[in-house]
């Protein structure tokens, strides 16, 4: 039975192979422990807030990455995030729907919307798909801005309730942190399992050679829709989670600039790897917060980093990590 470890170039002795098999598990356990302990290390609420943003952005980026696994880049991802947020916020405000259910509802509705939209939009590939998702995102923003009876337009929605688990409200940054961490682990685990399964096999086939995939019995349009629906559904749910944290929502909360930000995170982290979105979010989320003093500078740096990564590290930070890891492990075992 083949080891399910991500494509390690299996050379060298069995001792090395055994170490390789355990290394990811140990690393993940260590990271989790660190993540759980994090809030104890700092009393500064700002860092907890930052951690929450990183976790949420990771989910946005990873969900975008899921759509990217079938070779499609969506420039309208923020619209799905926003739509999920509005659905849950409005459900909570108008129908007193518990936020935790609102999040589930947002995910399901956006997933379904993506299925319907995807069947039409995914017929387009490459550049055309990017353009049409960009335009669709713009339509959505316009609608939200002007459908004032429902969304309160530019004024936005205030007083959105926090998530409540068994009567315990997640009304502080710290409490939300543990929720966000759990959601993050859930999403990342799900996407990892998905990509390791036959679904992942189908997605990658489509991205690498769409004609051959179809001729190998992989129903391309079906699996593209699946990827799009799952990615958009997760994004919608995460948007809902975010809105019950920030507790305010307006058309400015998630815009085209956010769609660009998610793409930036994905590309910087590494768009061909699952943890690319996480790395990108980890690296880029603190930037605007740290550079808050310099108006406009933070965005310029974002753009410059994106450009630099595209030019010099096209496969993102993950590829840098992989080559470092390869160097380290190659010097150990017998060759």
């Amino acid at each position, binding site marked *: 039975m083949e080891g399910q470890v991500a494509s390690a170039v299996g050379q060298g002795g069995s001792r090395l192979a055994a170490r390789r098999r355990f290394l990811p598990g140990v690393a993940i356990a260590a990271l989790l422990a660190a993540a759980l302990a994090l809030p104890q290390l700092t009393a500064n609420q700002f860092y907890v807030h930052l951690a929450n943003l990183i976790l949420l952005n990771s989910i946005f980026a990873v969900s975008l990455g899921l759509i990217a696994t079938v070779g499609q880049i969506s420039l309208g991802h923020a619209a799905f995030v926003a739509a999920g947020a509005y659905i849950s916020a409005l459900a909570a405000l108008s129908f007193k729907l518990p936020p935790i259910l609102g999040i589930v509802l947002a995910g399901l509705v956006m997933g379904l919307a993506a299925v319907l939209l995807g069947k039409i939009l995914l017929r387009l590939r490459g*550049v055309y798909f990017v353009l049409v998702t960009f335009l669709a995102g713009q339509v959505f923003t316009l609608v939200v801005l*002007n459908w004032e009876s429902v969304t309160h337009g530019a004024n936005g929605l205030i007083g959105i309730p926090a998530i409540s688990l068994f009567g315990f409200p997640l009304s502080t940054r710290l409490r939300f942190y543990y929720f966000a961490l759990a959601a993050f682990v859930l999403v990342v685990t799900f996407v990892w399992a998905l990509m390791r399964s036959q679904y992942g096999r189908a997605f990658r086939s489509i991205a690498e050679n769409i004609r051959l995939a179809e001729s190998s019995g992989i129903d391309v349009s079906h699996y593209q829709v699946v990827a799009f629906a799952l990615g958009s559904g997760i994004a919608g749910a995460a948007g809902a989670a975010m809105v019950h944290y920030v507790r305010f929502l307006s058309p400015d909360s998630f815009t085209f600039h956010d769609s660009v930000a998610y793409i930036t995170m994905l590309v910087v982290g590494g768009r061909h790897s699952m943890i690319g979105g996480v790395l990108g979010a980890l690296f880029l989320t603190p930037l605007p917060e740290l550079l808050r003093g310099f*108006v406009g*500078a933070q965005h310029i740096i974002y753009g410059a980093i994106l*450009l630099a990564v595209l030019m010099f590290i*096209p496969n993102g930070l993950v590829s840098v990590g992989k080559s470092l890891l390869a160097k380290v492990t190659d010097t150990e075992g017998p060759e």
Partner: protein
Amino acid sequence: MDYSILLAQAALNGLVIGAMYMLMAVGFTLVFGIMRVVNFAHGEFYMLGAFTGFFTYVHWEMPFVVCLAIAALTSGVLGMLVERTLIQPFRSDEMSGMIATLAISVIIQNGAVMLWGPVPRAMPDIVTGTLTIGPFSFSWSRLVVIAAAALIFIAFWLFMQRTRLGRAMRAVAQDTETALIQGIRVNYIYPLAFGMSVALAALAGALMGPVFSVSPFVGLTPMLKAFVVVILGGLGSVPGAVVGGLMLGMIESFTATMFGSLVSDILQLLLVILILLVRPAGLLGQREA
């Protein structure tokens, strides 16, 4: 309510907007046709043109024609530099190139915010007064914009059709490999085409400065419209960009007059999505492989 006057007004505005869209779209589609690059930074060059026009006309008080020339030249040169350094590395990777232009647009837009601040500035009309024909009156400034855009396009058209360089560009757009074999220096054509394309955008920005205001955020909408036009007319088709631009201008003007600008915007975007699905090559577009 005199509908004929309303319609005439809408028609004039439609031509004005259409002229701008046409200039934006022609440049955008030129770059796509020749280099297969979707330039997300196209709108930012429009914005730079608007600012250049503003500073040269209002602060330095130069004749407007000179202002236009300066706007075109500065943007053109900047465009050539950008192509050579930032876009050329992505020649073999369409998607990465597109994301790169996204990054460039972010940098330019926020650079403008840092340099000039986010507050919009008003630019006075180039010409005052109106032309009156019977019951209809048209403002001269609008007519001048239309005339200028027409002249610019004619100059562009003559360049593409009559000059060696222009023919070389068309050859590259049709078939890069064959053009290379024929000895056309593709490495010179690309920056030149890009420079020309953004120069057209800058001219549009300078011309429209008095019509819309001048701010760092003024480039997003024209770029959006350029997309719409180019998709209507076909990615890579210059005639399509002209027809599409004028058509969109008229559609926008009339629907805005009848239903308001929001509905007009939504309708336009839905129209595009529809066309993309039914006929992705656009009304006059080239067939994609």
